[in-house]
């Protein structure tokens, strides 16, 4: 199971990188960044998986005494939670930039922004 998640995560990272490098529309580039983000989250969660483990939430089925034997690692999951929120903030900022750039030139095509190109 963890292999599928890990492989998919890596593929999603590559797809995001491809979108960032080849797409011309700013919105699509931002979607590429989001894909890259999501792939990294998938990889982190896949790496933290413990074989046969269950979610790190203790209730009647997973009692406190055998928690250490039956749950997956909670630390990377907490880190992914942090990463998701920061990814959201970065995406919101990029969208704000895209809006500003659209107001400047009236287009979202990346090829029309040549001011910083050498």
């Amino acid at each position, binding site marked *: 199971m963890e292999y599928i998640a890990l492989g998919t995560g890596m593929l999603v990272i590559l797809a995001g990188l491809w979108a960032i490098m080849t797409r011309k529309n700013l919105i699509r580039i931002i979607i590429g960044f989001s894909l890259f983000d999501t792939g990294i989250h998938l990889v982190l969660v896949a790496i933290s998986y413990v074989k046969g483990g269950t979610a790190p939430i203790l209730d009647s089925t997973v009692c406190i005494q055998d928690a250490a034997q039956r749950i997956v690692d909670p630390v990377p*999951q907490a880190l992914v939670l942090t990463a998701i929120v920061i990814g959201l903030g970065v995406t919101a900022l990029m969208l*704000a930039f895209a809006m500003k750039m659209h107001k400047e030139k009236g287009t979202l095509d990346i090829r029309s922004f040549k001011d910083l190109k050498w």
Partner: protein
Amino acid sequence: MKNIFTLMILVAFGIMIYPLVNSFKGNDKLPELGNYYAQPENVTKVNSANLVTAVVVTYRGLDTLGEVSILFLTAAIIAFFLKKQTGKHEVRENSEIFTTAAKVLFPLMIILGVYIFMNGHLTPGGGFQGGAVIASAVILMLLAFPEVPVNQKLLSYMESISGIVFVGLAALGALIGFGYLDNAILPLGTFGKFLSAGAVPIIYSFVGLKVGAELSNILVEFKSVQSNE
């Protein structure tokens, strides 16, 4: 030429990450840190049924504080960056079905968000998830009734007060507990019940309010810059 270059970068990146996938063997038991957090004596010390919440709010609570400040920074930069548009924004009138459904769904979504962040220490969920649900309720209302003004002052007050309470509770842990963000400043309660885990549900509720207000504020900012010209 440019396509070949792109392809080369992609292939190089793929070759770079391939050993990571190839050498991954999977874990048979918890790593040391996760094992420490899952020990019975450490679980009962925090008394939160959801161990991820225990890590996010108490053990790595400082990271959460940083995360909340990053969100605040994002909201502040967007508010500074996007100037309000004076021109009128003409929108097509929404259908009766949509506006009625939005009116029905709005309170239910708010209640769901509040439920998610108040039960963050028992079930999957927590402040950030609940806040996102609240913000999605707000965006539904923004889409359904675009001409109704939003009280942004109220949102920013809610956000600031929640942030101050979060930091205050964390500092209280340092003053009367064992350290910054210690959750044992309140009675720990019975494990698995709503009133458990000390200050965790309260901290997470304020995080949820803060995130919900902040995301709503960002959405309102995005909406307010739209105009026809």
